[in-house]
């Protein structure tokens, strides 16, 4: 904990306990999202799915970076993470990003998106089913989970920025950096849903975190 750093924040009129609650909930949301995006990524397969997988991977790694960047600030302000990971997960500031049900109207359909490949009869049937699933819009439920998760994150960091603005400069800058990336994540997924036109460009490296990396103890491109 930084004594004077904390004093400055308190004197600026911030309710530090409330801010810490928000930061811990935000850190939990990042940590749980990282977990759930790992599952979503694994289930984004085939032609369309593989394209989506790349974006999920960037968002997934950047969400992990957000967790890493938030934790030092929590301890600096005198807070801490819950000892029990179950308690921590229950605090998450956003709903869990569960893998969607199998196709809404067809419980036999694959929950995966995109096309599979392979030569056996079984895999050819899988290709056919997956193609039909994509044609029926099976990719949309997964994208909907992703885009809603990002929208929730935007609300969370807008709220923290509003609270810290002009008072807790370090938390504000950190939250703003994360907010910048969450806004980009939302745009990636909503553009995939066809809410375009698209103005985004790929990250130079997976999980690059162009805004948040300067807050990381070990940036992704450390050598």
């Amino acid at each position: 904990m930084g004594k004077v750093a904390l004093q400055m924040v308190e004197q600026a009129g911030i309710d530090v306990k409330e801010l810490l609650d928000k930061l811990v909930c935000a850190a939990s949301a990042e940590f749980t999202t990282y977990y759930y995006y790992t599952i979503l990524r694994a289930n984004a397969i085939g032609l369309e799915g593989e394209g989506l997988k790349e974006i999920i991977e960037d968002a997934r790694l950047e969400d992990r970076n957000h967790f890493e960047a938030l934790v030092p600030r929590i301890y600096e302000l005198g807070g801490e993470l819950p000892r029990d990971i179950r308690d921590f997960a229950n605090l998450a500031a956003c709903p869990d990003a569960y893998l969607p049900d199998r196709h809404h109207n067809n419980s036999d359909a694959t929950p995966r998106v995109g096309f599979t490949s392979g030569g056996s009869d079984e895999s050819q049937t899988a290709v056919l089913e997956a193609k039909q699933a994509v044609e029926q819009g099976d990719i949309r439920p997964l994208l909907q989970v992703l885009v809603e998760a990002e929208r929730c994150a935007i609300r969370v960091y807008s709220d923290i920025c509003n609270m810290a603005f002009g008072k807790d400069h370090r938390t504000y800058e950190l939250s703003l950096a994360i907010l910048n990336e969450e806004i980009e994540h939302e745009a990636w997924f909503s553009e995939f849903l066809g809410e375009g036109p698209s103005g985004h460009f790929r990250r130079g490296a997976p999980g690059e975190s162009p805004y948040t990396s300067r807050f990381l103890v070990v940036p992704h491109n450390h050598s």
Partner: protein
Amino acid sequence: MCYVTVATVDDIPPGTTKLVQVEGLPILIVNDRGQFYALQGLCGHQKLSLAKAMVWQGIIDCPWHHFQYDIRTGENVYPRCVYPLEALPHLHQQLERLRTYPVRIVEQHVQVKIEHEPLSNK
């Protein structure tokens, strides 16, 4: 059944919410673009208070974990739309509808209809 005054119109400007207590019952009053609504004041997710909930275009957003509800019906609109309820039916419990209450404005007072006479009027 009777209407109970819970606030004045000026207490709750458009785009804001206010948590009030009616005989110990928490009720969230919402002013969405000049229209008033009243909903159960505890979120269906973890039964935490909806005080400081945000409203925007017919939807309130719980400040704790950002579940969202339709202010007219109290229905959960998020995360219901993305939860895999077939695969994980226990999640249904988290998606409970918020109870709604009739509201009226009488001479700049916001009044909510509750199901029984308030104790203070007895």
